[in-house]
């Protein structure tokens, strides 16, 4: 059994400040972390590998050139990393990345399960895994909290409005994991050093695949174009609630209720 895990990186939100008045984004510490939901997906894959025979392959799911995420994934326990790269890939959007991953799966000779994070921490996008599911014609399970594989089927616990439900689907399938569903393991120190030195059992675990060999130039043209950033209005001094306590309580309750709905 072969499991493909899509890993993406994200700027650590602790290192950035969005300045509303200057309408600029300040990056104080440029530290990238694995998307938390993607890390959960990798953890789910590694747990399946712990329980049964499985090969876990991590592949980059973003256009920015970044192999640290994949190296970290391999150090956590993945068997192989596929680093898709190329100049033409840098403007790619989710539609292009989904095509590239489809080509990766074909070149790998097929996989049984594709895992990704349900939503990204920064942009809140959840389309990548589902676009891939549609391209492959596979079933999708969205926002899984728990995952197990048995007898050619994948079973998951998902959230359905207020309660948790169990669902199952036949393999091959695409499953996206909810952020915070599992506690990801720490990367193995020796593997982490060796993957950077290209030594030991992880030597040559990370492979670079040129995107030009996977996709044609037409397939590489993005659908969505980024125009820029916008900033919320500057925070104004708080609204003072006047009047007796009962009326103030009503105002607060209404404000809280509105926020809870959103």
């Amino acid at each position, binding site marked *: 059994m072969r499991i493909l895990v899509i890993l993406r990186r994200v700027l650590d*939100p602790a290192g950035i400040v*969005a300045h509303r008045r200057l309408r600029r*984004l300040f990056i104080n510490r440029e530290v990238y972390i694995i998307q938390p939901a993607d890390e959960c997906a990798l953890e789910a894959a590694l747990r399946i590998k712990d329980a049964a025979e499985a090969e876990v392959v991590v592949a980059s799911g973003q256009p920015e050139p970044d192999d640290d995420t994949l190296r970290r994934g391999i150090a956590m326990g993945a068997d192989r990393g596929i680093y898709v790269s190329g100049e033409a890939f840098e403007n790619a959007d*989710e*539609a292009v990345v989904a095509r590239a991953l489809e080509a990766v799966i074909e070149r790998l000779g097929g996989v049984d399960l594709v895992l990704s994070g349900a939503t990204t*921490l*920064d*942009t809140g*996008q*959840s*389309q990548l895994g*589902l*676009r891939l599911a*549609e*391209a492959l014609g596979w*079933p*999708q*399970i*969205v926002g899984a909290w*728990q995952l197990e594989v048995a007898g050619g089927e994948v079973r998951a*616990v998902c959230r*359905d*409005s207020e309660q*948790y*439900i*169990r*669902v*199952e*689907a*036949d393999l091959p399938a695409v499953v996206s994991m909810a952020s915070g*569903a*599992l506690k990801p393991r720490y990367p193995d120190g020796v593997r982490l050093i060796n993957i950077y030195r290209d030594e030991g059992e992880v030597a040559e675990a990370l492979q670079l695949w040129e995107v030009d060999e996977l996709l044609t130039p037409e397939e590489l043209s993005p*659908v*969505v*174009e*980024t*125009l820029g*950033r*916008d*900033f*919320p209005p500057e*925070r104004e*001094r*708080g609204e*003072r*609630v006047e009047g007796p*306590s009962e009326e*103030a*309580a*009503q105002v*607060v*309750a*209404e*404000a*809280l209720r*509105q*926020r*809870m*709905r*959103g």
Partner: protein
Amino acid sequence: MDASYLDLMMAQQEETFEEAEGGGGVWVVADLSGGQIAPVTLEAIGAARTLADSLGAYVYAVLLGDDVTSLSETLYQAGADGVRLADHPGLARFAVEPYLAVLGPLFEEEQPEIILFGATDVGQALAPRLAQRMGGGLIERVTAVALDESTRAVKATFPVYGGDYFGVVTCPEARPQILTIMAGAFARPFLDEYRKGEPVMLDVEPAEAVVRLLGPAEDYQPPRVPLSEARMVVAGGRQAGSFDAVEDLAEALDAHLAGDRGAWDAGLIAADQIVDVRGVTVSPDVYVAVGIRGDTFHNAAMGDATFIVAIHPDPTAPIFEIADLCVEADPEDVLPALLEALT
């Protein structure tokens, strides 16, 4: 002039619509919540109306479900020019494949210019698959739209890092442009009860759901969300008066209970509940500070919260400088009324 005359005048102005041939248009895929049209769908129709009026196009709504025919009225009232209905017992529970089996061929035939979904579980599951199938562009969790009238492309804004800032993107060429819109981001349209129409029924060939439901997972316990990642926090301080009321408020809001250093000194909270630079740093959507004066260390640890409510008797308390909603009153007076208003 009596009221019946007014009624007559209004009735004469009842609007009727002739649907345009040849596709295009702005489409809204309706969502249900509690057996009614979901509020986000009405907001989507409002947004679609604005876009369609600028484009000179029509607004269509598609409603899928079981025994939903009577709900089509609301869609017309909110501003739809045409409604397509797929009413079938096989669509009672949402599953991707049966819904796609209806929407896929429909949109293939109609070739919409823009499709709007609510950013709900249903919308978020369907939109990417339709976008992939039709070669369209998908922009998720949109909070604002603007139209480039020369290219007929929508410029859509979506929050990044939960609203710290926004990204602005567009689909210059690909059609349809598919958007999922956030609940509460667009104004809900006025329901005009004189707007009426006859919905078009769609043929439904129920497809088998490939993801099978096994039943509720009653024994599953989700992992506890740590305070640092909580979406909603109720924190109490030394001026909170009765701390039981603070705990009740946290429970009523389904929020994490926390406090400042002073509350810990008084033995009211545990050490891992201290919101402080030296304790836990939080950035929730809502932070309610009850009787917290707000010293520098506390305020720095929670200043990133999206919406801050502060209740404190002292008008000069520093917490009021960063709060969005300031109540200068004794928490003991406010909390009972607040609890009552919330339940």
